[in-house]
């Protein structure tokens, strides 16, 4: 039976990002035995692992929404720009002359609402107007920065609101609030998608949209909602970004982060062709990418050269989880069972 379990594990898309993460940790521990050390500073936890989680919180949020969009067979390139728009919206409200606009619920509600609207626009263009996802979301990716600058009048808005800042750099029971929020959202999303049939609907639409329509699924609505979720996640990441640095930067906020999010999802084992998705995989994928950056610094790689080893690692993980490699590895394993149980692995 243990052989079967081993096989099941090797078939799981999450094995390779986990292995990559483990490898990175080993490399770091060899160089710096204190890498995983977690200490207490000013009453809250600090250390490299905490920093990785904290810095990764925004990418985690983007990857959450991106997983759903990719599972429907699409992609959302606009998330970085939507971050900037949501951040600028929050900044504009918090720096407005009218104090009644400074109320935190209002600021959050409007910023997230803007993100939802952006996601809805993407979803309508893709699912109802039938525009290719890359093109449809490229529209907002390009124009989003302009909209953000329009909202902030081209300025970087400095935000001095301790309550708002808490979202980006506060601590909850000694843990960074941003990371706690991200983990909580993954948990809620996992339960919400797997305890209902929503996750199945998304996978069905991504696996075969025509057959899904024949089976009576509202395929366009399912896809549209995935983009809406992605827009919401991006807006929350944008708010978090503005809160973290204490400023809404329409130029730099979220720049190139859509690519990190897509990388994390793919490395995590959700195929770009749509269908099966795993939120846990995306989560591990983000941690892998986030650990890579400090590792490269430790190893003395010049920052301008850093993307090259990063790209190499991504390629390796993707090749390892390809069907071909997995079949090859499976054949290497001695196996008595003729029919292997293809399990739907914990996702």
């Amino acid at each position, binding site marked *: 039976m243990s052989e079967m379990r081993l096989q099941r594990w090797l078939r799981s898309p999450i094995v390779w990002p986990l292995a990559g993460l483990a490898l990175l940790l080993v490399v770091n521990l060899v160089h710096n035995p204190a890498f995983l050390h977690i200490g207490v500073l000013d009453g809250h936890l600090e250390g490299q692992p905490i920093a990785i989680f904290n810095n990764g919180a925004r990418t985690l949020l983007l990857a959450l929404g991106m997983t759903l969009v990719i599972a429907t067979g699409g992609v959302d390139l606009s998330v970085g720009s939507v971050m900037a728009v949501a951040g600028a919206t929050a900044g504009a409200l918090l720096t407005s002359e009218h104090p009644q606009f400074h109320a935190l619920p209002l600021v959050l509600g409007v910023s997230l609402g803007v993100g939802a609207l952006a996601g809805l626009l993407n979803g309508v263009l893709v699912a109802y107007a039938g525009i290719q996802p890359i093109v449809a979301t490229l529209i907002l990716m390009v124009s989003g920065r302009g909209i953000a600058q329009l909202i902030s009048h081209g300025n970087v808005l400095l935000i001095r609101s301790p309550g708002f800042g808490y979202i980006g750099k506060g601590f909850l029971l000694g843990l960074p609030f941003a990371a706690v929020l991200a983990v909580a959202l993954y948990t809620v999303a996992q339960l919400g998608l797997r305890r209902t049939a929503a996750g199945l609907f998304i996978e*069905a639409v991504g696996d075969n949209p025509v057959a899904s329509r024949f089976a009576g699924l509202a395929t366009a609505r399912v896809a549209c909602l995935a983009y809406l979720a992605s827009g919401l996640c991006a807006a929350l990441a944008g708010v978090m970004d503005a809160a973290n640095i204490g400023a809404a930067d329409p130029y730099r906020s979220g720049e190139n982060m859509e690519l990190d999010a897509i990388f994390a999802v793919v490395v995590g084992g959700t195929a770009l062709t749509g269908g099966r998705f795993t939120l846990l995989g995306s989560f591990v994928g983000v941690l892998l990418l986030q650990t890579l950056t400090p590792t490269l610094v430790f190893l003395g790689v010049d920052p301008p050269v850093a993307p090259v080893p990063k790209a190499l690692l991504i390629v390796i993980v993707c090749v390892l989880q390809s069907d071909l490699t997995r079949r090859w590895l499976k054949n290497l394993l001695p196996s008595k069972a003729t029919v292997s149980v293809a399990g739907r692995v914990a996702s």
Partner: protein
Amino acid sequence: MTAPLLTLSGLGKKFPGVVALDGVDFNVRAGEIHALLGENGAGKSTLIKVLTGVYEADVGSIRLAGQPISPASPKEAERLGLSTVYQEVNLVATLSVAENLCLGRQPGRFGLLNWPALRRHARAALARLGLELDVDAELGSLSVALQQMVAIARALDLQAKVLILDEPTASLDEKEVADLFAIMRRLRGEGLGIVFVTHFLDQVYAICDRITVLRNGTLVGEYATADLPRLALVGKMLGREIIAPEHSPLRATTAAGPVTAPILSARSLSRTGALHPLDLDLHAGEVLGLAGLLGSGRTETARLLFGLDRRDTGELQVKGQSARIRSPRDAIALGLALCSEDRKTEGILPNLSVRENLIIALQARQGAGRPLRRSEQEQLCGHYIRALRIKTPGPETPIRNLSGGNQQKVLLARWLATRPALIILDEPTRGIDIGAKAEIEQLIAQLRADGLAVLFISSELDEIVRNSTRAVVLREHRRVAEFSGDAITAPRLMQAMAGGHQSHE
């Protein structure tokens, strides 16, 4: 007659598990229009693909004007003089007519285009067909018929000796077909050999000189059109001998009709290019067979009933209530189910498990917020895996790992799990083994006994005869006959499918 222009002899082509062509001979003479006919799986498209260099034949030879040839690619076939125009226009809609006509063989040097020469070539190519078009117009702005003719002009531009027209008339209206035929006659007069693939028998008799019939990858025969009556032709396509048509008066069908109100009734249901206005009633406890040749409108009828296509006219009533069916969701909510003929693209969710494939329609009807409990799902799976004898390692196996017959059973189970009042089965036995076929026929009888209404679409006459309590025949998108009970016999169905002068309507 002159020696054949194109000769295929003993052509054979195997694919894993299928013999697509088995020792087929085919001859085309210069200056004739030659119909290539056959039902699904007859080998027409394989033959054309071998001719045009898409596939290489395993055995056999091809001679063009006496010279042995073996085209290795469509490009080489074109260079040799074998040109093909497909049903779907394979041109670039956003380029101009002239650009499309010269694409891939542009006049000019060093990558620069000689525009005046390009336009001149284009006009000359169109003139050969007697067409006068603005060569600078964007191709996409033309009607499908004109695009089709541009495609023909492009094919002929290449000094073609043989022109292969693969279902060129499928999306044309009557006037456009007449224009196309005028061009075909003109080219025949120029000494071209034309191979014409179509599903419309009227067109075969209107324009073709000779007919070659294929069935299941083998040659049935080659005939002069004038010597082959329609009924005999249909018999050859379907693989049955003609039995003398029965002249006994047919039993009135309405008198034998069930007393119950229909579950579904359609009145003057139509869609341009797919179906002429059609009336259809379906009652509980009956199997209505829908027969007709390929392209006669059977699948189109199913799609309209199930809300997959928008109908142009017509009314639908479900259980006596006027029904608004605009999507499969609406249809399913009203208790309809459709098991599509195209299992791969319209049926299975390949990477999802047998369990997920089985429950998806039921779950979709319930909505995401009311998930079936895992135990309920497993119970449903267990029940249908046993009842339909689905061979699968387990309910969690991805459905793509199952054989065609077992995939089909899972799809049937998907629909039965929704407890439909009416189930439409479009070619449910296609591409599955004999044993599974028999089981599916048994299931149809069981469903009828359980009081379901079944609309059964099949290309196999014997299946219609064996399983139907009533049968409707479609021909060229029209309902042409109805039989019920013992009056459903293969010869009668065949006669209605063939139509033409011998029909006794």
